[in-house]
């Protein structure tokens, strides 16, 4: 299922100098922006806890809240559709397109639609889909996947961007981001005005009034959901929240954690289609609620992963992500949260390396505005993989032998003495080994290995204890 095996993707990423520069720039900015923005709140830790509780309350009451949300959306004049899996979601949208003779779709950012592969499904039926977010539009032109939840083209230089716009759309070459942006603005204007249908994601769905909330800086979400006659909003079922008080803390921690902003430029609160007396806005509004494995996750010990508000803070904080970027994770959700969500949504054996691609440093957990304990879930996923028989026979035997040795003081001491003697013999006078045999050669590929000290602490302790008692005699 992995398009590129993970280890190979890691090597490619580490060798890509442009990517390394872009990652360094992007993740450093992201971390610093978040720290500053969270640091200036009334009480960062207390607020993270409030945000966590808001998510927990919602997850504890998911079915009632979804029903309340549905009632209120319908009362506002909207329609609500439910999709058990990716295909059903895509089918719903295809049906709406057919019913309304839709040829041109304009899209604001939605991770869920990438999860279901919606764009391909629409294009296969001759429907034109344009991503309206600047970064998403550019990578759509390039035929690439986004590499970050918040900054989809983090991996792309401005030179590469200018070349792409020149090649695909005839833009005169420039190295000015302002000029490139102005050019795309002009192109997108036509798309907005021409589109038959607009699709958006949902950052939060507030059950008590049937309102969907989105956050953005560009204005493409507002436009995509205002000019076309139909608005389709797509949400994972875990995005519902109970109250407007919950919205206040969650949306502000989202902006601060994602981009370091107190508020994004536009926070949109959409409650159904235009009212009969309103001069503009879509005539029809559809909210599609997607399961695609989320109810299964809710029943599991990984329910906490559903609290995620998709801010991307864990990506920026993660030293692994900082070194390899988003594409290496192989699917829609990168970084620490991706390493959990991908195996949970697609099946653990589809991404067997991801749970191990972590030193368990905990930077992600510290950065997360809703206190998700990612390291614990990575450990559980590793345990699941072991129980599913994933590790090679060599590893399984090795671990079994290790356990036998290390729970027996005798074997432990013997093993220690042998290892000590071996390393000292191989290191000779240097004190270090430059090369270890397989399966330990991975160590010495990147660093030296020390010769063990001798005798062991235990031996020294005993020697001193004996000499003391001898001295007493």
């Amino acid at each position, binding site marked *: 299922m992995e398009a590129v095996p993970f280890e190979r993707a*890691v*090597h490619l990423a*580490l060798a890509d100098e442009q990517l390394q520069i872009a990652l360094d720039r992007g993740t450093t900015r992201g971390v610093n922006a978040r720290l500053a923005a969270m640091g200036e709140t009334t009480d960062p830790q207390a607020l993270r806890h409030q945000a966590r509780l808001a998510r927990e309350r919602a997850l504890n009451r998911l079915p009632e809240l979804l029903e309340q949300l549905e009632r209120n959306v319908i009362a506002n004049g909207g329609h609500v559709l439910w999709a058990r899996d990716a295909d059903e979601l895509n089918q719903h949208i295809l049906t709406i397109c057919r019913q309304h003779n839709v040829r041109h779709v304009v899209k604001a950012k939605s991770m869920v639609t990438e999860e279901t592969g919606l764009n391909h499904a629409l294009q296969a039926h001759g429907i034109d889909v344009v991503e309206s977010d600047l970064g998403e539009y550019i990578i759509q032109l390039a035929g690439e996947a986004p590499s970050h939840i918040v900054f989809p083209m983090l991996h792309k230089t401005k030179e590469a961007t200018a070349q792409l716009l020149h090649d695909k759309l005839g833009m005169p070459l420039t190295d000015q981001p302002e000029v490139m942006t102005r050019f795309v603005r002009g192109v997108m204007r036509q798309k907005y005005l021409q589109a038959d249908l607009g699709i958006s994601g949902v950052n939060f769905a507030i059950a008590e009034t049937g309102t969907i909330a989105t956050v953005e800086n560009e204005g493409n979400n507002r436009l995509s959901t205002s000019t076309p006659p139909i608005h389709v909003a797509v949400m994972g079922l875990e995005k519902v929240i109970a109250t407007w008080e919950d919205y206040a803390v969650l949306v502000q921690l989202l902006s601060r954690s994602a981009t370091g902003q107190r508020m994004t430029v536009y926070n949109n609160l959409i409650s159904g289609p235009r009212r009969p007396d309103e001069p503009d806005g879509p005539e029809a509004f559809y909210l599609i609620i997607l399961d695609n494995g989320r109810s299964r996750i809710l029943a599991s010990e990984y329910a906490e992963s559903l609290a995620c508000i998709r801010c991307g803070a864990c990506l920026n904080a993660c*030293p*692994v992500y*900082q*070194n*390899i970027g988003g594409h290496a994770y192989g699917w829609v959700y990168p970084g620490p949260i991706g390493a959990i969500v991908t195996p949970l949504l697609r099946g653990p054996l589809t991404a067997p390396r991801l*749970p*191990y*691609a*972590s*030193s*368990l*440093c*905990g*930077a992600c*957990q*510290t950065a997360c505005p809703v206190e998700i304990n990612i390291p614990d879930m990575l*450990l559980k*996923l*590793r*345990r*699941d*993989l*072991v129980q599913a028989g994933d*590790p090679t026979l060599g590893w399984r035997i090795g*671990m*079994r032998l*290790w*356990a036998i040795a*290390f*729970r*027996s*003081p005798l074997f*432990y001491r013997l093993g*220690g003495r042998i*290892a*000590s003697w071996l390393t000292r013999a191989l290191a000779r006078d240097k004190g*270090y080994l430059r090369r270890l045999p397989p*399966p*330990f050669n*991975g*160590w010495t*590929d*990147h*660093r*030296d*290995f*020390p010769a*063990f*000290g001798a*005798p*062991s*602490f*235990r*031996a*020294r*302790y*005993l020697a001193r204890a004996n000499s003391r008692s001898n001295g007493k005699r």
Partner: protein
Amino acid sequence: MVQRVAYFVTCIADTVFPEIGEAGFEVLARAGVSPEFPLGQTCCGQPAFNAGFNDEARQVAEHFVEVFADYEAIVTPSGSCAAMVKHYYPLLFRGHRRQANAQRIAERTYELTEYLVDVLGVRDLNAALPRPTRAAVHDACHGYRGLGIARQPRLLLSYVRNLTLVEMIGHDQCCGFGGLFAIKMSALSGAMLRDKLAAIQSTECDLIITGDASCMMHINGGLSRVGSPRRVVHIAQVLAGNVRY
């Protein structure tokens, strides 16, 4: 307060770096503790646990629980081992016949600097470095984020003579060891190590001090490989006044 205190030296400070094992023991003695050393101790089981091998981890952990059963405090010169016992033993032994014992052990286990500062109230251990030295702390992840250990080492180090403490940019950035991660995902581990070496390079200091021998082993392996004269030492060695650099 006279507690029966056991010293858990850790497998790495027992076999690879016995001088660290000795330093930790010496520091406790200087602080007025008479630590006991249960001779049957081996390992906390973390390597297997981190690899997802819970059964194997539990077998080794069960031995730990037996060996350290009768002590009021278990002190270890390792944040990662202390975190393993405190955070994960209760999970590992859930529903197990040893659950109550494991829970008790988890509540009584401390990392060395945590025990000295928070339990014993110790500050000045009358330690000194051989010559005026600028040093920076590398905050090992499990102690720092898992146990909240940051203030304690710095407090103890502030009393060490000839030592000027500076802060390294990225002092809390993972060095890339991560246990078996260093071997299983060696390219990633190597990349993270390079970032840590760059941070050390850009910090004006003669010495790096850390609370985890495994980080020390990993970073020193990198420093040695690139031919740098700088080294990482364990905080126990500094506090015991027994460090060569």
